[in-house]
């Protein structure tokens, strides 16, 4: 399951999509909207995306992770549009037989997603809006 969604992400659904009976570990990463960034108080975030290419690139990143680690199932959902503080922007779940590779694979997927997937974040603060350019 790889999904770009305009509605709130259903974390349980993402986790369920990554469950596998031959796996002992499901590792999950949730990226949430922080109330501050770069020393500023944040009001909300706005995500723009190229959804068709984003899905394709996320699939590519997941495939890379599956080549590197024994990932049996993976699910990724990324939100678009306007997000309030505390809301979930991205949810990633991977099922692996053992936990060590789960942490590594999950970290790889979020790191690569932030590098190559066509999604953009605008931070809206009291003194203005900024499109974020980061590969952090």
């Amino acid at each position: 399951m790889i999904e770009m969604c305009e509605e709130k992400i259903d974390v349980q659904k993402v986790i369920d999509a990554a469950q596998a009976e031959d796996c002992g570990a499901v590792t999950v990463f949730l990226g949430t909207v922080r109330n501050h960034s770069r020393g500023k108080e944040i009001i909300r975030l706005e995500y723009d995306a190229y959804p068709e290419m984003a899905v394709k690139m996320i699939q590519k990143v997941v495939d890379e992770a599956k080549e590197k680690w024994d990932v049996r199932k993976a699910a990724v959902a990324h939100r678009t549009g306007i997000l309030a503080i505390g809301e979930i922007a991205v949810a990633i779940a991977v099922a692996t037989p053992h936990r060590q590779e789960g942490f590594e694979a999950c970290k790889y997927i979020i790191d690569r997603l932030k590098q190559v997937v066509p999604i953009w974040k605008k931070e809206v603060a009291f003194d203005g809006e900024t499109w974020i350019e980061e590969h952090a």
Partner: protein
Amino acid sequence: MDDIKTLNVKVKFFALGRELIGQGELQLQLPENNSVAGLIEKLKEEYPRFAQLNSYLVAVNMEYAGVDTELKDGDEVAIIPPVSGG
């Protein structure tokens, strides 16, 4: 005398690019045998504000592509500013 052949491409803009162009999608007509580099030149001519986007990649049909990539009629080109998902 031959007709001058042209190719039509769809160009998509996102984030700051979308704001600079004032819309998310354009249809552009280019002379035949053109590349990503030619498209960029035409964008800069027709949309001077595009030059304010000082860092971006280009995707052709949803694959990242170099400036030498040849364009075909019907291609979907996207201007990809530095991404910041997650």
